């Protein structure tokens, strides 16, 4: 060791930095780092100079100014006197709302379509292929504006529901689909509704423990309980009984036509629905392909072994094929969730106020702080994306085949 050091230091020449494999990688890394830092410094310096020349040095104080604009879709209290920061938070929540709902719908649709595409039924399999190829091969932005156009052009105006000669009518007198959005019955929590909610939450906990107990029982005795129906019963019955015992504290408020528009109930803006429909149909096509690939990746021997054991086709699917296919499906599923979340930024095309519409749209235009707004916007999406992929990776690791 000492000798090697001696020869190295003794006959060290500058050219060894390049031609000696012991030093070359270090040299290259240092050069790359220097170039990178020089480039970054050049860009940042240019930026600061340019911003200073325009009289708007980098700073985030504008976030605490009054926003001065309204947001029609909000999950938390907000009015135009609130700060830009709060407007951004409202937008962020809207992004998360559409991303979450979209992921749920897309997953359900995608799994169903993916399984149906493998169906032995010729016409169903063909139809699903057509669906997948249609949705995958057309830009998502086109789907978004298309579904928005459907809601605006095809659905009736609230006015059409009026009078005796109404050209449109409400579904079950409870749902109104208009070109301004959907009006659904909304719950009103009266006195004593707390008890119902608590019982409902308790039954969810109960379901969890029942599931554990049923599994343990199955392992011990081999008997299989109809867990699905029992769980459904536990979920619904106690809450319904308490609801009637307490004298029906939770009532539904139905939307009614008042003035020019419907009042009451839950109002879902059509920009939200159009975005949701387009994003989930589009992403479902990709998820369906991932599901199909996952199922096809499971060798036929597994299915045959299962049927040799006497499992029925449904049980083969749910106990043998799907658990194994999940390992193949999850990684592409993660990236589809990420894609959906990022594509939700196209909300700006239909006027849904997500974070791109508030922070990257109106706030940017009003304050003229492009640099800060877009940097914050990117940061938000980066955090969302990294957290989604982190959570899903943890899940992925938990279902991964443990090789010993």
């Amino acid at each position, binding site marked *: 060791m000492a000798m090697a050091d001696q020869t190295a230091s003794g006959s060290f020449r500058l050219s060894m930095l*390049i031609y000696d494999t012991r030093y070359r*990688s270090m040299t*290259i*890394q*240092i050069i*790359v*780092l220097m170039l*990178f830092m020089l480039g970054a410094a050049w*860009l940042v310096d*240019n*930026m600061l*100079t*340019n*911003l200073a*020349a325009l009289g708007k040095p980098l700073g985030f104080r504008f976030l605490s100014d009054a926003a001065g604009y309204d947001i029609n879709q909000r999950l938390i209290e907000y009015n135009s006197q609130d700060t830009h920061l709060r407007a951004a938070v409202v937008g962020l929540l809207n992004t998360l709302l559409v991303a979450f709902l979209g992921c749920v719908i897309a997953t359900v649709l995608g799994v169903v379509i993916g399984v149906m595409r493998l*169906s*032995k*039924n*010729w*016409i*169903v399999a063909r*139809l699903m292929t057509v669906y997948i*190829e*249609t949705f*995958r*091969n*057309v*830009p*998502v*932005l*086109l789907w978004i*504006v*298309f579904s928005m*156009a459907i809601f605006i*052009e095809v659905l009736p105006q609230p006015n059409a529901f009026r009078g005796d000669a109404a050209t449109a009518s409400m579904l079950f007198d409870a749902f109104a689909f208009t070109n301004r959005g959907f009006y659904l019955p909304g719950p009103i929590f009266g006195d004593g509704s707390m008890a119902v909610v608590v019982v409902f939450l308790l039954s969810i906990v109960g379901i969890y423990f029942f599931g554990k107990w049923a599994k343990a029982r199955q392992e011990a005795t081999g008997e299989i309980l109809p867990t699905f129906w029992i769980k459904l019963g536990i979920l619904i019955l106690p809450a319904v009984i308490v609801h009637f015992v307490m004298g029906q504290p939770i009532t539904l408020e139905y939307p009614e036509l008042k003035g020019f528009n419907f009042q009451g109930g839950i109002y879902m803006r059509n920009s939200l629905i159009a975005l949701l429909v387009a994003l989930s149909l589009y992403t479902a096509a990709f998820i369906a392909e991932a599901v199909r690939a996952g199922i096809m990746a499971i060798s036929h021997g597994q299915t045959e072994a299962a049927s040799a054991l006497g499992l029925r086709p449904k049980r083969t699917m749910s106990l043998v094929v799907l658990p194994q296919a999940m390992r193949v499906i999850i990684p592409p599923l993660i990236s589809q969730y*990420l894609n959906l979340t*990022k*594509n939700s*930024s*196209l909300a*700006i*095309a239909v006027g849904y106020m997500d974070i*791109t519409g508030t922070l*990257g749209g109106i706030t940017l235009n009003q304050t003229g702080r*492009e*640099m800060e707004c*877009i940097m914050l*916007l*990117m940061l938000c*999406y*980066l955090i969302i*994306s*990294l957290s989604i992929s982190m959570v899903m990776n943890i899940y992925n690791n938990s279902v991964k085949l443990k090789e010993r």
Partner: protein
Amino acid sequence: MSDQFYVRTEMLEEQPAPLGQTGILKWSRENLFSSIPNSIMTIVSVVVVAFLLWEFIPWAWQDSWNASSRRECLDSTEITGACWGVITERFNQLMFGFYPHELQWRVLLCFVLLIAAIAPVLFDKLPREMLWFSAIYPFFGYWLLWGGSLWGPIVVIAGFVLGYLVMRLLSQTLGGLAAMILAVLTPLIWWLFFAGAAADILHGIMPVGIEAVKSSKFGGLSLSLIIGIAGIAISFPLGIVLALGRQSDMFIVKTLSVGYIEFIRGVPLITLLFVASVLLNYFMPKGTNFDIILRVVIMVTLFSAAYMAEVIRGGLAALPTGQYEAADALGLDYWQSMQLIIMPQALKISIPGIVGTFIGLFKDTTLVSIIGLLDPIGLTTAIRGDSAWNGIVWELYIFIALMFWVFTFSMSRYSMYLENKLKTTH
């Protein structure tokens, strides 16, 4: 007793299979009505398809291709559905945007030459000399599209030639590395300080050029194709470099690559397009103002390179280690082993992913309508702004969807074909 036996001595005549076991009846029993749920699904599907076609075909099957305005369609008694006149009248615009009519042959020529330029890359049976054309094509194509003085592209090419000459001449006297550094620096200096002036002087001496077209005139499908193809062409090599960087043993190179890839993949393309439209000029020295389409191409390329890198990394990771070790055992250095052993195999594995990224990039070019460029979707707003076509929706969207569908679907089919062709396993 013996005549009680009966032994058949000749074969029975073959009977035709029962009616339910042959032909269409058997097929439909097996594929459509194998069980009760299956039959229900079949019937439901048929009803749904029939309903959709029942609604759609009478609407779409209209002799309205010659209508000159939406009012004409609405007033006409014969036309009860789609008003396809908008496609006929605005076809040119949907293809070329506001590109001057008498110059549109340049765009067409550019796309035709593109085929000639990529042919030698795709098919190795063609003469290798054709690669020279592929090398000049980017500059020539740019000149055809944007027009202006021919000297502009020529001085840019001159930079590359200069670099090559420096490399050739000095590698003997100064040694490989010094020559390489100078070969990179000389063209840079040339482009930054002398190229503009040289082009002006040459243009003054001998004005050769064609009419210049501003970026704001570009639009329609040709804009999507220009952005898409430029993005694809540049992001591919960039993606390879990034993928190698991510797989590298060098810590700093690896960290930078990972950071870049994860950052780009974590943000939506639309934010990067915002950067292109409002921020990019801030990062340049004061007074620089380069073209919006160029800026968009830069950001789209940077975006897609990160995805490309991930796809190629997948291919690199899928190769058995034996391949890397065999390349080392042959005494190849890093670049040789990559070029001769690793990349050809890794790229082959990642073909589906690469084409998928290309398709994604092409579809994503529609996003430029949000920052105000006139790609087909951006043009729909412009067309609806005209009083003649006010309120027209479906015809345009259906036409645009069809256009994109044809391109992306054929790309995905081509990738399947390529995959099969390159498959070496049995």
